[in-house]
């Protein structure tokens, strides 16, 4: 059966008939009620899951490179970003050798917020004690309300699912996110916390898009000693005494821009430790890490550079803007699409603090919802008049927008592109196909 599905995946991909990354898994789901149970015994060492609104793909690929470099074994991962249950299953099917042999050491999977409960349900009763199971929870931000629902609702579902994990499972939690840190209190499992200790990087002005300013334990409002971004920071509840737990001491040098990259690095570091990788190996691999596609990816064209910062929700967008502004940009390109993977509702752009973009930066808007984007920018500019409006440009077609952006640069300068998910794929396609130039 597995071989049949594996062939099916190839055929689908070969003839471009739908997604080879999810269909084999979809068919398998028809036959097995708890499909992952079938594969779990095949992993010799264990399974690592990564969930959270932002940073899943990057963290997952960090962990995969750690395990590959240090352990050298065979790792199964859903690196195509197919992160629903069918994507996880499809990754397992595709990893089978043609003779049907399985020789897997680790499974490392990123899991969609809504799918986490159904994925964990599979693990519940099928994970023998000698195999490791590690669950990394990065953060919870508001994201695609039309698809995911409210942050609180997801947190409640996760808590229920976590309670069903076997007692030898380990949690790696972001201590700076109150909602995530709370799982360490409410679920009795071995827990490791990561977080940032850098007073000098506290935000001076709070982001608007705050999701968990209330104590997850008693619902009093939280007090923050400092905030890194959105609701992540050093927090405490003055009513019930619940506070940000102490975090692991981690020192990694990394060239990845943006404070938020540290969260992904720290989470991967702790996953490496949980998998038994030595501290030296972990530090070396992670400090050399190159980002996953579309995440701070750089493409060179005609001795000018284009750098892509995937920006798919308010917290991610705010983090990207700050990282980009630190790099002193001349021009930025905002690409807003509203296809299924982006979310159909574009209301969230009003939760992004575009007001911090200074008037000297040229802003080009594009995407399916280019006019929603440019209106948002118009209302973010401090003094709107004929002079300041020159800062803003509208290009309905993405290829024209990229061309225009590049035309404004001198050699060796960089155009920063902040796209939503489907817009990121489109941008890469244009740039790597070099169709426009």
């Amino acid at each position, binding site marked *: 059966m597995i071989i049949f599905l594996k062939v099916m995946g190839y055929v689908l991909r070969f003839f471009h008939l739908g997604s080879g990354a999810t269909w084999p898994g979809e068919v398998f789901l028809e036959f097995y009620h708890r499909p992952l149970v079938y594969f779990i015994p095949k992993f010799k060492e264990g399974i690592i899951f990564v969930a959270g609104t932002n940073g899943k793909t990057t963290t997952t690929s960090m962990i995969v490179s750690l395990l590959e470099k240090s352990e050298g074994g065979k790792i199964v991962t859903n690196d195509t970003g197919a992160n629903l249950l069918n994507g996880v299953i499809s990754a397992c099917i595709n990893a089978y050798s043609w003779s049907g042999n399985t020789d897997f050491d680790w499974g490392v999977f990123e899991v969609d917020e809504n799918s986490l409960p159904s994925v964990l349900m599979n693990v519940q009763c099928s994970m023998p004690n000698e195999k490791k199971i590690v669950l990394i929870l990065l953060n919870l931000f*508001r994201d695609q*309300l*039309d698809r995911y629902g*409210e*942050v*609180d*609702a997801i947190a409640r579902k996760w808590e229920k699912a976590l309670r069903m994990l076997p007692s030898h499972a380990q949690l790696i939690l972001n201590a700076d996110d109150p909602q995530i840190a709370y799982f360490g209190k409410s679920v009795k499992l071995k827990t490791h916390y990561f977080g940032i200790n850098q007073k000098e990087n506290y935000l001076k002005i709070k982001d*608007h898009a*705050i999701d968990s*300013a*209330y104590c997850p334990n008693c*619902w009093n*409002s939280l007090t923050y000693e400092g905030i890194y971004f959105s609701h992540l920071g050093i927090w405490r509840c003055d009513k019930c005494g619940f506070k940000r737990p102490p975090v692991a001491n981690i020192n990694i040098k990394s060239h990845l821009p943006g404070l938020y990259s540290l969260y992904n690095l720290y989470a991967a570091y702790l996953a490496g430790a949980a998998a038994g990788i030595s501290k030296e190996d972990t530090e070396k691999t992670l400090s050399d890490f190159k980002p996953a596609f579309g995440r701070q990816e750089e493409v060179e064209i005609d001795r000018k550079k284009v750098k892509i910062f995937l920006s798919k929700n308010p917290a991610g967008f705010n983090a990207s803007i700050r990282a980009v502004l630190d790099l002193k940009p001349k021009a930025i390109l905002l690409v807003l699409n509203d296809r299924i993977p982006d979310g*159909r*509702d*574009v*209301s*969230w*752009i*009003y*939760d992004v603090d575009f007001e911090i973009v200074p008037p000297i930066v040229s802003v080009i808007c594009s995407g399916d*919802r280019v*006019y*929603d984007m*440019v*209106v*948002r920018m*118009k*209302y*973010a500019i401090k003094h*709107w008049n004929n002079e300041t409006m020159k800062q803003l440009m*509208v290009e309905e077609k993405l290829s024209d927008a990229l061309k225009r952006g590049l035309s404004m640069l001198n050699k060796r300068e960089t155009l920063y592109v902040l796209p939503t998910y489907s817009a990121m794929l489109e941008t890469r396609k244009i740039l790597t196909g070099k169709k426009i130039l």
Partner: protein
Amino acid sequence: MNFKLTIGWLYPSLMSTYGDRGNVIVIEKRCQWREIETHLTRIEIDTTNRELESCDLILGGGAQDRQQEMAVSDLLKRKNVLKEMFDRGIPGLFVCGSPQLLGHYYVTGEGKKLPGLGIFDYVTQHFGNDKPRCIGNTIGKIDSKFEIRNSKFKNTIVGFENHGGRTYLGKDCVPFAQVIKGYGNNGEDKTEGAVYKNVIACYYHGPFLSKNPHVADWLIKTALELKYKKEIELDPLDDELEWKAHEEILNRMNMK
């Protein structure tokens, strides 16, 4: 004469779930561009009624379930103050989930019946969390009550709706719009939202005013006229981009 407006934003820390602050930004900017001074008052649980009463315009957005309960319990204590303000003609805009607080009651997805302020004559019922939500781009038709001088008027409103509850209007309750595309109050009777005096309640999501500048200007003008007790003409603005965003939705839904 220098005009000044005080905008009251209801519970920004509890009820600003998905871009709702867009409406505040749009009102502030459209005033600023016309040199109308604005002051923003954030109405939170510890805000006094005196501060609430000093507002010339009230804006409300959506909340998550838990936060909504916290907001309602505070709002119920202020019921008479708000009702008196609205009866005086203070304009307001309630989007997303907040209209549910203003009717007689709201039955949640778990079957819990929460009392509302009873200012609007309607009731809202959520038929269970397993029932499909009303989600998608939406278009409505409004009447010329909202047409004012110096501001381009179109009898359409556009936006995005996303609600689990269904609202049913009482027999004398006036709908805000007639549904052209989308679900509206309940997916059955083609009504969208409701109007009480100068207060608009509607299911449109988040930054409703960003693509509907005519409604934004109507709110500003109404608030100014009530405050300064005279007829006021707003300065015209260049709204080309806003109307392009508006028309984009009409085009997509084959309305043009």
